[in-house]
C-alpha cells in the first residue's frame, strides 16, 4: 500500500457514487410525488375493531406512554335464547389514542386478548395542530380498512394464522 492510496480510494468511492446516481438514479424517492411501499406489517398506525373491545383496560395499563384513553359502561343486551336472562355487555363510550404521545411500541396490540387492535402500515396522518393527533374511536375504526391480512406462516408451523375481522 503506497502512501496516500487510501485517499485516492476514498475519492474513487464518492466519484463512483456520483456516476451511479447520475446513470441509474437515486436510492431515494421524491416523496410527495412518489411513494415507497411500506413493509406489509409496518407499524404505521393502530386500528381499532370496536366490536371486539370489551374495555378490559389491559392496553391502557400496559401502555408505557399512557396515551390510550378508554371509557365504557355496561349495557343489557337481549338474551341469546328466548326466556333467558338479559346479557351484560360492555359498551365503549370513548377509545382514544393520542399519537402525539404514542411511541409505536405495539404493546397494546400484543396485549389485547380480544383481537381488537391491529397494526396498519398507513403513515400519512400528520396534523398542523398537535391536538388533532388524538384519534377517537371513529377514526381508529376507519383505519381497520387499511389493515392487511396476516401472512401465512412458514410450512410446518402449528400456530393458527389469525384472521383480521372485517
Amino acid at each position: 500500500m503506497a502512501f496516500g492510496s487510501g485517499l485516492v480510494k476514498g475519492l474513487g468511492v464518492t466519484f463512483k457514487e456520483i456516476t451511479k446516481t447520475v446513470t441509474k438514479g437515486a436510492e431515494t424517492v421524491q416523496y410527495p410525488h412518489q411513494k415507497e411501499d411500506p413493509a406489509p406489517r409496518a407499524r404505521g398506525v393502530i386500528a381499532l375493531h370496536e366490536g371486539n373491545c370489551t374495555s378490559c383496560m389491559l392496553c391502557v395499563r400496559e401502555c408505557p406512554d399512557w396515551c390510550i384513553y378508554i371509557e365504557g359502561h355496561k349495557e343489557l343486551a337481549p338474551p341469546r335464547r328466548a326466556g333467558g336472562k338479559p346479557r351484560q355487555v360492555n359498551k365503549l363510550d370513548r377509545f382514544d389514542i393520542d399519537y402525539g404521545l404514542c411511541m409505536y411500541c405495539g404493546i397494546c396490540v400484543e396485549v389485547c386478548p380480544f383481537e381488537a387492535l391491529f397494526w396498519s402500515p398507513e403513515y400519512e396522518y400528520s396534523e398542523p395542530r398537535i391536538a388533532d393527533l388524538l384519534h377517537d374511536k371513529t377514526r381508529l375504526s376507519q383505519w381497520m380498512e387499511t389493515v392487511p391480512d396476516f401472512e401465512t406462516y412458514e410450512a410446518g408451523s402449528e400456530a393458527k394464522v389469525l384472521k383480521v375481522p372485517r
Partner: protein
Amino acid sequence: MITSFLALEPAYWQSTIFKLLMAFVAVLLPAGGTVYLYLFKMVSFMQSRLGPMEAGPYGSLQLVAELGKNLQKEDLIPAKADRFVYAAAPYVVLVSTFLLVLVIPFGPDATFADLDTGVFFALAVTSVSVIGILMAGWASASKYSLLGGLRAAGQLIAYELPLVLAVVGVVIQAGTLNLQGIVSAQIDGQIFGWGGIGNPFILTQFIGFFIFMVAVQAELTQTPFDMPIAESELVAGYMTEYSGFRFLMFFIGEFATANIFAFLASVLFLGGWSIPPFIADALFADGNYSNIMNFVGPLIMGGKMLVLTFIIYWVRFTYPRFREDQLQKFAWKFLIPLALVNIAVTGLLKVVFE
C-alpha cells in the same frame, strides 16, 4: 478594456460603474452556479439522493428560495456582543473576496486592475478575511464563536505560508509578479522546444499546484480542514451567532472565495484565459485574437474554474476532518518544507536552463 472592442471610449465614471457591475457578476454568478451545481447537486449524488428538486426545474431556483428565506430571518445580535465589531465582521470577510477578484485576468484586457504585483496583492488580501473571522469570533460573546475564531486564525495563518510559497515557484518560472505576465509566460512557453500547448505551469509546478490546492482548501475552512467550523463540537464556529443576511454574507464569502481561488489557480497553473497556441494559430491566422479572447477568455476561465471547484468540493465531501494538531503538523512539518524544497529546485533549474 473590453469596450474598446465595441469602439466605445467610455469616460472614467462609466468604466468604473461597468467594472463595479462586472465585479458583482464575477463574484456572485460563479458562486451561485457552483453552489447549485456542486454543493446542492453533486453532494446529493454522492449520497445517492437527488437534492433540491421542487424550486424551479430540477431545483435550479433553490438558491433564490434560500436567499428569500435568509432575508426574512430576524437579524439577531447577542445581548453581550460588541455590536459594531459584530456587525462589521461579515463585511470584512466579503471585502476580502471582492478585493481578490480585482486582479484576476479574464482576458487580455478584461481585468479590473492590471497590477504589476498582482500575485502579491492577491495573496495579501486573502489575509484580510482572517481579521473578519477573528472579529466575528471575538465580538459574538460566545464560547463556541471564540474557539472557532481562534482556531480559524491559527489555521488560516498556518496555511497562508504554503499558499504563498507554492506560488513562488510559479513566479520564479514566469519571472514576473503580474498575473497577465504569468498567463503570457504560459502561452509563450515551450515544452522541449515544442510550443503547441504553451507551457501550463501545472506540468512543471505540479508540486506547487498540489500545495496550492491543499492550502486553498484550508484557507476556505472546508473539510478536511473545517476544524474552525466543526459543527459536531463548535455548532458553527465563528458563525454560530449570526443569522439572516449577515450569515448569508459569510456564506457568500466562503463559496465565492472558493471560486476566486479556483480562478487564481487556473491563472497560475492552467494557463488562465488562453487557449492552446496550436488551436489559436489554426483559428486566427494573423495571430491577433486578443479582442475575441476578451469575450471567450471569461468562458475559458469559467470552465477551468468549474474543474478546479469540482476538485475542491469532491475532496470536501469525501474526507473526514483533521484533528487540530494534525492540521497544524501537516502545514508546518509537511507542506512548508515541501514548498521550500520546490522553490529551491525551481530556482536551481531556472539557473541551469537559462
